[in-house]
């Protein structure tokens, strides 16, 4: 607590430095975790593909070439071609963009709404808390994919609607986690002290409570990107997500179903891509959880 405040709204660097040191320690624990590093490296690779897909892809992802349809993998077409003769490798590279966009944005949207609701619920308590949490219970009463399915039915199938639909199922998860963390932070003495000094609710929430609940939030967000990618590709597989000829992995898998007998590679590679990207986020999420766990001090 030494030197936490020296006037009503400026901080001595002590607190900030302590927080920075803490993150440094977390980072050093994280890089010592082999599986987290593997997961992180794959995510980095996928991010590079997101930005450089047009430079990396050897072919146009939607250019049809009926003379070369359903070709098996070769040096010309690394992952073969699909039923319209399109190069699967190029489609997967472009599909990475959609996958990562859906993953990040749906979690960002779900987390933003969930965090706000969770903090308000935990901080103010009482009736507001009851109302918010009962509404969250209602959303939790639908198995994730079903809620997303219902929302896409209402909004119609498109990439943006998939993002909205998938984000909805993560709102109650974030709200619950953040509410629980807020409740425990709120009880700390220094929050009382700050309040006694006359800080406003908004200031307490954003300057003092929020920075203290980021650890569980980061872990949950990372793991949720994995779930979001799975749900979104599921919706596209059902024909409710990205529409043809968009190179979306779930939709590509759906195309591949019809060629399992004579061209199984059409379904193989999009599926493998989903597995790798989801695995990467799960590995990083698990690693972050261990690194941020207060029990795992060096």
């Amino acid at each position: 607590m030494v030197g936490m405040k020296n006037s009503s709204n400026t901080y001595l660097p002590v607190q900030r430095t302590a927080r920075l040191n803490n993150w440094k320690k977390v980072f050093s624990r994280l890089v010592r975790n082999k599986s987290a590093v593997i997961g992180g490296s794959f995510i980095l690779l996928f991010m590079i593909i997101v930005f450089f897909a047009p430079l990396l892809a050897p072919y146009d992802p939607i250019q049809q070439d009926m003379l070369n349809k359903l070709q098996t993998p070769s040096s010309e077409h690394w992952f073969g071609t699909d039923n319209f003769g399109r190069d699967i490798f190029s489609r997967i590279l472009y599909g990475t963009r959609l996958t990562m966009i859906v993953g990040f944005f749906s979690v960002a949207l779900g987390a933003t709404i969930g965090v706000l609701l969770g903090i308000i619920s935990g901080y103010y308590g009482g009736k507001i808390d009851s109302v918010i949490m009962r509404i969250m219970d209602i959303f939790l009463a639908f198995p994730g994919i079903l809620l997303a399915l219902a929302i896409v039915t209402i909004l119609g199938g498109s990439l943006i609607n998939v993002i909205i639909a998938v984000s909805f199922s993560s709102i109650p998860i974030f709200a619950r986690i953040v509410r629980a963390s807020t409740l425990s932070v709120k009880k700390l003495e220094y929050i009382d002290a700050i309040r006694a000094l006359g800080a406003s609710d908004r200031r307490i929430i954003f300057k003092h409570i929020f920075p203290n609940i980021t650890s569980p939030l980061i872990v949950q967000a990372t793991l949720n990107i994995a779930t979001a990618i799975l749900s979104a590709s599921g919706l596209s597989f059902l024909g409710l997500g990205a529409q043809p000829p968009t190179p979306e992995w779930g939709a590509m898998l759906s195309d591949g179903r019809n060629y399992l007998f004579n061209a199984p590679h059409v379904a193989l590679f999009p599926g493998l891509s989903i597995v790798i990207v989801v695995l990467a986020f799960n590995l990083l999420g698990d690693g972050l959880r261990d690194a941020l766990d207060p029990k795992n001090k060096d």
Partner: protein
Amino acid sequence: MFQFIVRRILQTIPVLIGISILVFSMLHLIPGDPAQIMAGESATKEQVENIREQLGLNDPLPVQYFKYIGHAVQGDLGTSIRSGRDVTEEIESRIGITIELAFYSTVLAIFIGIIAGVISATRKNSFIDTGIMVLALFGLSMPNFWLGLMLIQWFAIGIDLPSWIPFLEDTSWFKPSGWGSFEQMVLPVLTLGTGSAAIIARMTRSSMLDVIGQDYIRTARAKGVKESIVIYRHALKNALIPVVTVVGLQFGTLLGGAVLTETVFAINGLGRLIVDSIATRDFPVVQGSVLIIALLFVLVNLLVDIAYKLLNKRIDFE
């Protein structure tokens, strides 16, 4: 205990009301005129008006809601726009398959998950432990619809293996579609159960490790109790308590996950009914099916909470 059960049941009432409002609103949240959307673009004015009348869309919203709920409570979920059959009838003819699929998948997941979790925990940090946990992570990260397609490819269509491998010239052991016979059920159950098996294995492992580290286990070992008894009689019994919650939640999740599995294996369950009805814009069927699955999910969660409380009397719910 009785008080707890009553209180827990009372707590589900607002959730049930919320679910009913949400499901009811589905139809009204669709941009545009629901009657027109359901009738299709080429429908005549008369047809659209018929659908509007059939769904009672001319009444004020609250009246429509109370009518919907009033009928639903009596088992009337409306009429399918496409088939003209009662929605309840449609659901009744399909729901058994979906519950069977989710049930067998949960049983498989429990069986594999708990065994794998215990083996992993008792051989912590060994090669086997790492292997099981890597497999579990893969199970968790695999889209089940892709796993389903791959299983069809390997074990229904079959793969060409070199002829010198005995007994394995042909791997087309199972059927790629339908539901009912053993050959038809193996692949869908494996497809749907794998993800849950992975979750249960991870949960069992961490729960076992928690328990094994506790004093009473050390005491039992110090007293010279046989290791197998320590693990299976002392540790596992307590380690399984948190696993119960996960198992219950998984059953609910699998009811939802059946949507994809049923689509992959062309199984005529409730999940496929939902997907087909979305495609044909048959909203009364979609609403009814979503409502039923949500109700089942709430019921399962209620039972899980009660089971958890019975198993662990120390837990004090607010």
